[in-house]
């Protein structure tokens, strides 16, 4: 059935960590989306909880504030009956006078099975994966990646549009500084969707030609041709760094106003990872329109993160049990969890 993704960083075939979307490969993504279907069903129950990860400890290591992502992961862990722990720290290790490695070893000494890591610097999850025995999930590292966001976005697209292959997706806004965009582009390309980046050149990543995507600065030309418009949050300080003249001008040229929504095909959807800046990247009334999926993305985030946690931790501890789970089709893995919950 499904093969475990090869981890390019450890060289092993095991599913040790989730550091970037590329670690998963298309099969890995599809498997997690199938698992998420089963956990979405769990989440509709009166008591949305299964004992799949009972006795396992999932620690949130958030070096950067993020109430939403942390809450989503902790909810997912609790619904799998895992124990959760939270480590909040300042955004800079230097400010504490402790090296990142020392921090990691402190956490490791507490004996955790999984570290969910958020940091403002790219690559921290990769670095921690070299220093920790625990599974590491990248919950956002600088401008690099945010793989679970891309997975929940793919899940949402599939839920709304039925499939992802062949779909055309426009990602609009601050691509250069967006870990969401890097993960989402990787995932969509693995699933054979077409991607167009829409942004002023100051907000495009360097060497964008190598990304293998379309690029446009004319949103009005792009909108009629796409199935999905994905809006990125625009950080307010961008205009102070001369990347933009003003937020108002950005909204004029690139914001998805209600007017522009009318240019979309009837079936097209509008996505946003949150939190939104109404009146900047998205028109003030657009979030409430039926084409917008923001609330579904948040709900799906819990199911997808349950799937990721189960995918990384659920196959252990017994090697034999792992082999059994590997051999069974993904949906049955979740139903196995269901049975044992009864």
């Amino acid at each position, binding site marked *: 059935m499904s093969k475990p993704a090869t981890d390019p960083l450890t060289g092993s075939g095991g599913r040790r960590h989730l550091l970037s979307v590329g670690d998963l490969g298309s099969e890995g993504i599809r498997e997690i989306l199938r698992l998420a279907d089963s956990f979405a069903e769990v989440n509709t129950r009166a008591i949305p909880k299964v004992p799949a990860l009972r006795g396992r400890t999932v620690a949130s290591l958030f070096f950067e504030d993020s109430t939403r992502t942390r809450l989503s992961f902790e909810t997912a862990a609790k619904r799998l009956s895992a124990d959760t722990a939270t480590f909040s720290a300042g955004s800079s*290790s230097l400010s504490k006078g402790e090296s*990142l490695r020392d921090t990691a070893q402190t956490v490791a000494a507490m004996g955790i099975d999984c570290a969910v890591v958020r940091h403002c610097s790219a690559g921290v999850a990769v*670095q921690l994966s070299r220093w920790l025995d625990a599974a590491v999930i990248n919950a956002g590292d600088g401008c690099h990646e945010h793989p679970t966001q891309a997975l929940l976005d793919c899940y949402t697209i599939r839920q709304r549009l039925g499939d992802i292959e062949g779909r055309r997706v426009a990602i609009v806004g601050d691509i250069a500084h967006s870990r969401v965009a890097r993960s989402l582009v990787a995932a969509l390309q693995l699933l054979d969707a077409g991607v167009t980046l829409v942004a002023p050149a100051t907000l495009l990543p360097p060497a964008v030609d190598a990304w293998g995507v379309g690029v446009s600065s004319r949103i009005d030309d792009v909108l009629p041709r796409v199935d999905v418009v994905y809006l990125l949050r625009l950080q307010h300080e961008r205009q102070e760094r001369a990347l933009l003249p003003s937020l108002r001008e950005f909204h004029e040229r690139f914001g998805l106003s209600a007017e522009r929504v009318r240019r979309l095909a009837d079936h097209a959807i509008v996505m946003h990872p949150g939190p939104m800046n109404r009146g900047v990247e998205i028109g003030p009334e657009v979030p409430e329109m039926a084409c917008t999926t923001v609330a579904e993305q948040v709900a799906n985030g819990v199911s997808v993160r349950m799937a990721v946690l189960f995918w990384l931790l659920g196959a252990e501890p017994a090697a034999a049990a792992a082999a059994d789970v590997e051999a069974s089709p993904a949906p049955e893995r979740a139903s196995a969890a269901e049975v044992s919950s009864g």
Partner: protein
Amino acid sequence: MAERSRLFIAGGTVVDATGERRADVIVGPEGTIVAVGEGLAAEAAGADRTLEAGGCIVAPGLVDLHAHLRQPGGEQAETVLTGSRAATLGGFSAVVAMPNTSPSIDSAAMVREVQELGRASLCQVEVAGAITVARAGERLAPMGEMAALGVRLFTDDGKGVQDAGIMRKALQYASDLGVRLAQHCEVDSLAVGGHMHEGEWSSRLGIPGIPAEAEEIMVMRDVALSRLTGAPVHFQHLSTAGSVAIVEAARRSGVRVTAEVAPHHFTLTDESCASYDTRFKVNPPLRPADDVTAVRAALARGTLDAIATDHAPHTADAKDLPFEEAPPGMLGLETALSLALTELDLSPAEALALLSWRPARIAGIDDSHGGPVEAGRPANLCVFDPSAVWTPDSGGGASRSRNTPYVGRRLRGRVRHTLVAGEAVVVDGEVQR
């Protein structure tokens, strides 16, 4: 102080700027070369020590134009003494210590302090002074007072002098001091906030980048300022194809510029940063393969003057940080010669020109370093086996720090003995004190 004795270097091949010949070398207790020639064994009878040099090249000691010895202020990472051990293990008999210490070497008092530390070290330590006070790029440092103490090279290394007007005046002011100003070429407004080369890899890795143009614009500017003032400018650690082309064009038109390249800029590419391993974080950053190729080609053409290590020790604690927080820099003194011999398509004499006699002239120490191996000359010598293969390991080295990216890499050519002013400070690959 130095233990000097009569030494016999037996059975090697002497290579210097004058050519190559099989010759033994006898060094006298006063620290100078006494005799050079074939079959000196009889003459050497009674030497205190014989240094075997069979299969080895006996060359003028190497001269590093660019070493961060971290003292004062960074003693946890390196001291002048430990840095000099690393230097001599790498075949260097002289190094130029960069002034970006804490505090900066920007006054006569600071120069004296580091010169004092240098006298107690294993190799000759030339002190570079800062061009501006505290390397802040605003007011000229007392270059005249520092030059009076023997300082021959000035730089704000670690950063470039940003203001063109200040740099012009620094060049003009220093023009009668018999010194050379050296530039770390990087325009802050393009580089600040960047942590690796800006390109395909930085784009993929989400690490803010530094474009090649941040370096090239300042190279261009300082070529123009050298032309304007008539003063020489030395370019430090050039890393891009564009910089190389600008320097070559400037030299063809007669502008008095010289340039050095660091070993990592002809051996490693920006792809190394894909592991987020902070040992590969360096400034200027590792560049793409096209730049590496251009740098190697220029070294082969002889249009660049020197290989300089940019030896930049950092403690493990400092490097075990997120990529965007870790300080830039990697070790270089112990691997530079081997990398030049392994990676570059150069004869030993061509490699030695870049590592010994040409940098000796730029440093202003060619009276004592880099000269021909002949009787009467100071015995600053490097004896190395050009065919020995070795692999740096993570525990190794004489530096106080361990931040080398070359662990596990097979290198060809290894230093066997190093003599500084007649003292055998490295014998058979072991530092003697």
